[in-house]
């Protein structure tokens, strides 16, 4: 039974899947399910915070026409699933070691545009990246709020959405997660409107995902 979650994202039984845009080819050892001639890739919520957020009930505001800015793409695992769903992804990653893998992935999937840059310095890639429909951030840095706000201000369309995964332990290990999340939300609200939020338990510990829009 294939159940549609949103554009390009489905549920097969209890598994979250996307339609493989490069049939016959997988990138991270993810499982493949074939059904009625369509090849689906299984999206593991333990290895992707977006997948975890979707399974926890967040509605991902993207479709096949969306242009996405992805901050903290790492080796591109989550990116590869988004690339099954959306039109184009600008993927920013700072570490050369994992960027190598992202580059090789982008070679196979031409809707991923890799950028080796520091997301805390959006000026450095401002000239190549246009306004986007969706900004996603997963950087686990102390100043991730500032990074997210800066990028949203610079790149997010007026009616666009932003999503940010917060790992309370990389902001302050000594504070309780709830306190960290509350403070983060306060910071977000200064410039953006929080649409929904969800904790990622049991897939990730002490993580929270916020979905936001620009204030109108």
């Amino acid at each position, binding site marked *: 039974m294939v159940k549609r979650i949103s554009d390009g994202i489905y549920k097969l039984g209890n598994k979250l899947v996307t339609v493989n845009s490069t049939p016959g080819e997988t990138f991270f050892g993810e499982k493949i399910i074939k059904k009625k001639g369509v090849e689906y890739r299984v999206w593991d919520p333990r290895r992707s915070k977006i997948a975890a957020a979707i399974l926890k009930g967040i509605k991902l505001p993207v479709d096949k026409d969306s242009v996405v800015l992805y901050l903290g793409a790492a080796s591109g695992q989550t990116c590869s699933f988004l690339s099954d769903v959306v039109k184009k992804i600008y993927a920013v990653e700072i570490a*050369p070691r994992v960027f*190598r893998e992202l580059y090789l992935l*982008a070679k196979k999937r031409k809707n991923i*545009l890799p950028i080796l840059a520091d997301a805390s310095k959006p000026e450095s890639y401002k000239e*190549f990246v246009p306004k986007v429909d969706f900004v996603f951030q997963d950087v686990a840095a102390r100043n991730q709020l500032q990074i997210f706000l800066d990028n949203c201000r610079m790149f997010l369309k007026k009616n666009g959405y932003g999503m940010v995964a917060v790992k309370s332990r990389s902001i302050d290990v000594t504070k309780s997660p709830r306190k960290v999340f509350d403070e983060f939300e306060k910071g977000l609200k200064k410039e953006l409107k929080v649409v929904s939020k969800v904790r990622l338990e049991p897939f990730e510990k002490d993580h929270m995902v916020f979905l936001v829009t620009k204030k109108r």
Partner: protein
Amino acid sequence: MGEYEEFMQRAKEALLQSQNLDSWVVNLAELIEELDKSFNLLYERLRELYGIYNPELLEKDLNKEKFLKEVKKLKKSEIGYNLSEEDLDFILDLVKELESLLSLRKKTEEYLAKVVKENYPNLYSTAGALITAKLIGAAGSLKELARKPSSTIQVYGAEKALFRHKKTGAKPPKYGYILQHPFVMSKPPKERGKAAKELAAKISLAARKDYYGKENK
């Protein structure tokens, strides 16, 4: 050229720039550390195994090479457990592996020294190969190292103590990786702080010379 091709081209250039000799040298130094760690782990196990057969050998204060040599003689002691031929063959196999680890470590060290001497001649003559590699690793690249003040270079490798100092006001560290340098190590403890300061100053000069200058000093 389309947008995709432009991004790929830029990404490729950035990647090529990020992968340079610096990371090669840093990884060689890491390899040496890991070889040491693996050797020590397996060596300890060999001592335990062989000690069943000849406990007396453990009591003697032998260095690693000598100990391996003694083990190869397979001399049983009177209080040892009587192992069979097959058991002893197994011991010899393990000794062989350990000897090859030792020789690989030696080779790696010589090779690292050669690479560092050729490419960072001034750092090589002030800090030595291994410390040079570690400092480059801590700074991220030679370029970054050349831009660091010597007070930073002095405490690279002592980050834990440094941040403890900043956070709680505990005593600041006097030296990090550069403690391993004979110039610092050979001093009595009271003078090591000063020696480290002096050496760090020279290292920072050498790093600048190696990065910005061309010829040897």
